[in-house]
């Protein structure tokens, strides 16, 4: 399949907008043709993952070359959570060389006209696309939220692909940009009562693991409450993490799912799952707390909203975290500033916790070495996503409900 190009795109491909745009468009064509795209769609908002931990020396050199050539983003580009909070990097034992490189990398992005928001919850803070709007977002959690909750249209756009979209102002029209891939492919009857963010993440784990496929689109039916943005966030990030999924429907909640039939759009469901309370409880029971010591409690992955920060602050108000435990919370600059103003940060810090800004805990540079240096083994979190992603750093992870996480932090033992 050869993509049909407009005259403007033909000119870009011929190098009339410079070699960086030429290369970017060629890469987009290669990706588009792999997935059978016929055309491009314009985008006016791009969100990119890029920090020194994921980009490395080669990625930084690539950016420096673009800056040297005075390449600028033609579409607003915001950045995802990064790998260090400069105020805490030394305390955590992150590499001074990497800190220097991260400063260079951020300077490059700003020079290219990027907006370094450093957030994986752009959809709860900096930008909310309208129904049907095409965007090019990276961080899988941002994409599944955009597609599912806003009814916007994006594929997973990894760092270089998002950057390409910002340079060309477009993205190839395949996957979730097209109606045909937005239809539900299987049904999940939710009989379980979901009372905590971790329950929503557990639901995402069950469903994601059952159908690991980017083009699988679950249709959730039977949800008896009106879920909050944070609940949908934890469900979506978990589906994306365990199932590589980029979209879900929820009957009566998400805009393309007034009922099951409409959400399926004529598809015959390839599976019908039922998730009951006992299935959710089995998720929690599936973690082995080993010696039972709670060395680390993390609220992160995704970054916390203002409402999540408020709740953690309230749960820790006047309490003291065990001397055997460390507790970390991560959020973006916007919500950290508000949390400072509202006293949430002080509550958490007075209890012995640490609030990090602009990062996600599992992305931290040097995390494996930090874990070893601090003797961390067990990691407790209410995020189903992070208990999955962070295992690459050899943590033993345990998913617990939010209040149980706090209880673990206070007692130093995993309940």
């Amino acid at each position, binding site marked *: 399949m050869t993509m049909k190009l407009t005259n403007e795109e033909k000119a870009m491909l011929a190098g009339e907008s410079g070699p960086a745009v030429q290369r970017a468009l060629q*890469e987009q064509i*290669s*990706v588009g043709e*792999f*997935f*059978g795209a016929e055309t491009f769609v314009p985008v006016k908002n791009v969100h990119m*993952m*890029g920090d020194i931990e*994921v*980009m*490395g*020396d*080669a*990625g930084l050199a*690539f950016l420096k070359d673009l800056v040297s050539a005075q390449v600028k983003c033609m579409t607003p580009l915001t950045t*995802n959570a990064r790998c260090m909070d400069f105020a805490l990097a030394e305390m955590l034992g992150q590499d001074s060389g990497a800190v220097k490189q991260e400063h260079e990398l951020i300077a490059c992005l700003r020079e290219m006209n990027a907006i370094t928001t450093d957030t994986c919850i752009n959809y709860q803070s900096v930008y909310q696309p309208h129904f049907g709007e095409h965007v090019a977002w*990276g*961080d*899988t959690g941002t994409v599944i939220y955009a597609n599912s909750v806003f009814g916007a249209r994006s*594929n*997973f*756009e*990894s*760092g*270089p*692909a*998002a950057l390409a979209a910002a340079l060309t102002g477009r993205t190839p029209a*395949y*996957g979730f940009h097209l109606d045909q891939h937005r239809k539900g492919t299987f049904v999940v009857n939710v009989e379980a009562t979901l009372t905590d963010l971790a329950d929503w993440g557990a639901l995402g784990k069950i469903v994601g693991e059952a159908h*690991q*496929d*980017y*083009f699988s689109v679950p249709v959730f039916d039977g949800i008896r409450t009106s879920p909050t943005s944070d609940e949908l966030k934890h469900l979506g990030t978990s589906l*994306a*993490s*365990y*199932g*590589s*999924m*980029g979209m879900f429907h929820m009957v009566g909640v998400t805009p393309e799912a007034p009922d099951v039939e409409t959400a399926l759009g004529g598809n015959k469901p390839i599976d019908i799952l039922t998730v009951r309370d006992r299935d959710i409880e089995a998720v929690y029971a599936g973690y082995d707390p080993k010696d039972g010591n709670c060395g680390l409690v993390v609220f992160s992955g995704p970054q916390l909203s203002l409402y999540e920060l408020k709740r953690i602050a309230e749960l820790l108000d006047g309490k003291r975290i065990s001397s055997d435990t460390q507790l970390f919370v991560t959020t973006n600059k916007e919500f950290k500033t508000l949390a400072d103003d509202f006293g949430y940060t002080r509550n958490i810090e007075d209890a012995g916790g640490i609030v990090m800004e602009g990062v996600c805990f599992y*992305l931290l540079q040097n995390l494996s070495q930090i874990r070893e240096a601090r003797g961390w083994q067990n990691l407790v979190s209410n995020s189903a996503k992070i208990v*999955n*992603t962070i*295992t*690459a750093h*050899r943590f033993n992870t345990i998913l617990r409900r939010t209040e149980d996480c706090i209880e673990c932090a206070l007692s130093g033992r995993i309940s």
Partner: protein
Amino acid sequence: MNTGSKSLSLRSIFGPSVEGEAVISAEGFSPRYDLNRWTGEITKPGHKLEGLTITDKILFFPTAKGGVAAGWAFYDILHKRIAPKALVFGKTNPVMVQGAVFADMTIAAELSDLPENLFKTGDTVRIDAERKVIELLC
């Protein structure tokens, strides 16, 4: 060339033809979650390929796993000289393809048969980009 009798066809491919040692995984893959990106070793505890090094291999995975970091990761490990020769997925996602394109690494997906029905780890296989087939060499 001694082309083998065993081959499967594929629907989607990017990159040049390559040949190399096959590694057949029963589990999906993410260079973010599963890989040590300094050594090329799969380090995720319990991963079915835990302890194996991916460098210069042709890797077969049934699925991709989430995580947009892969987009930069393949370029990164290419420059660290620990990259595989090619990636073959039963089902893939855009991140893997975008990352492979950026690193100019061969990637293929949507196969006519399960690779474990034809190949085993250690076999030498060839991905023919023109004919869209993967065949056993020895």
